[in-house]
């Protein structure tokens, strides 16, 4: 193991440029994942904050009876998606409208605010489709004039999040493929550079696993370094955005760990895929 480690480190010195290239592509691959991961996480947090405020507001037709209202509120409160139902009288609506969310301000005509039912949804039931469905159901009551909700916002945020996820995955996969190929070719170089040693190893009866080990260690180390570099780049991006644009959250330590482990896995995969093939080429004339 110690010997394998030493041989692996030697490979870095033999092809420093190619090694650096391999590490950098792995870093970019993970950085692409990471950056869009960060966007996703931050949008998720933003969504949660907005969602908490997402409520459906059903405006009542003037002159709705107390009885009808109570029954309707009971019904709506029993919808599986609904967490909470409240009644806002005409008077209190006016007061509250001043403190309300910006995105709802346009909903209210400044002077006349009708009484309304305020509906809050359960967590996980706040995506645009569900919100729309609940709104449609509430709108079927005859005394409901109009149902309003901050759908646009939610829809937009969801769209951005989905785009971020797909872009991140797409770019990440492209970089990951490039990384695997580059790691593969650094392994090829390393195998060729050590052709004599490998030949002798085989001659005296070193096992295949033993011969492969230094190359696998080399690939894995490079991947890990790439992962660390990616985390560093993501952190820089995060600080820059936080300082210049708006406050963002960073990955948890566990997520950072996963990122570095993913780098190691990429490097391992890249070397595993190529080492067998290149070793066979060297072994032919042993």
């Amino acid at each position: 193991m110690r010997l394998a480690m030493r041989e692996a480190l030697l490979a870095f010195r033999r092809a420093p440029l190619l090694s650096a290239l391999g590490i950098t592509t792995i870093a970019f691959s993970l950085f692409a994942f990471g950056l869009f991961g960060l966007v996703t996480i931050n949008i998720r947090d933003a969504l949660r904050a907005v969602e908490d405020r997402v409520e459906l507001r059903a405006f009542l037709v003037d002159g709705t009876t107390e009885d009808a209202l109570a029954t309707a509120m009971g019904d709506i409160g029993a919808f599986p998606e609904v967490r909470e139902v409240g009644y806002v009288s005409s008077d209190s609506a006016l007061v509250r409208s001043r403190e309300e969310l910006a995105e709802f301000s346009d909903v209210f005509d400044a002077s006349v605010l009708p009484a309304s039912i305020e509906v809050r949804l359960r967590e996980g039931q706040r995506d645009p489709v569900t919100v729309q469905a609940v709104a449609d159901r509430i709108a079927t009551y005859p005394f409901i004039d109009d149902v309003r909700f901050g759908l646009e916002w939610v829809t937009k945020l969801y769209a951005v999040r989905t785009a971020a996820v797909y872009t991140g995955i797409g770019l990440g996969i492209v970089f990951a493929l490039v990384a695997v190929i580059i790691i593969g070719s650094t392994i090829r170089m390393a195998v060729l550079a050590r052709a004599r040693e490998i030949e002798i190893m085989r001659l005296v009866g070193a096992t295949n696993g033993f011969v492969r080990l230094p190359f696998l260690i080399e690939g894995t180390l490079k991947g890990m370094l790439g992962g660390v570099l990616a985390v560093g780049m993501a952190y820089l991006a995060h600080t820059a955005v936080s300082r210049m644009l708006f406050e963002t959250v960073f990955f948890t330590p566990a997520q950072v760990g996963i990122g570095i482990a993913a780098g190691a896995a990429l490097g391992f995969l890249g070397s595993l895929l190529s080492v067998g093939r290149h070793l066979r080429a060297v072994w032919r004339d042993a």
Partner: protein
Amino acid sequence: MSGVLRLDAVTKEYPRTGVAVRDVSFAVDKGEFVFLTGPSGSGKSTLLKLLSFAERPSQGDVKVSGFSSATLRDREIPQLRRRLGIVFQDFRLLTDRTVEANVAFALEVTGAAAGTIGTKVGRLLTQVGLASKATAMPHELSGGEQQRVAIARALANDPFLLLADEPTGNLDERATRGIVQLLREINALGTAVIMATHDLSLIMRSGYRYLELERGTLLYDGTDARRLTRHQ
């Protein structure tokens, strides 16, 4: 009689060059010394490769120690190699490390305990007469000395069989005699030796058993050295 190896009707055919070894059968016993001779291209190296499982027979069966080409899987080959010593005409030393590091390499890569390697290397270098050159680099040695290093490396895992493919092919007469003498000493300690050579005088002087190949077929297997004088 305990057999070290046995070939049964072995044929080796290469995809582009055709048949290199044709229907060869022979056996070697424990502690024997056998020469392998024949003109260039007659299949000597191929035969040695079959014995070290660097090549697989196209037909027939190669048995070395308990291993048979019919059943041995590729992943088991290292087990066999550890029990074989193999040397070549061109020494195949690692030029970027010292004599002792070259010998130690064989032990390191086959999982010898680190603490035992130093002593073992010292003993092997003494056995081949190179104890005083342990820290020299290969290029600082004569051809004969380099071959001794290669032999020390081949002996690292105490082989029961030593395969030598023209080990004296690059050496002058004196160095050749020294190497052959060394191989005889190793043989006297119980290791079977198969040595390929073009040097018929070596075979004649030794009186040992020899196998003669011609275009892949086994022409002669015996100890009659007088046949060889006719060749010369």
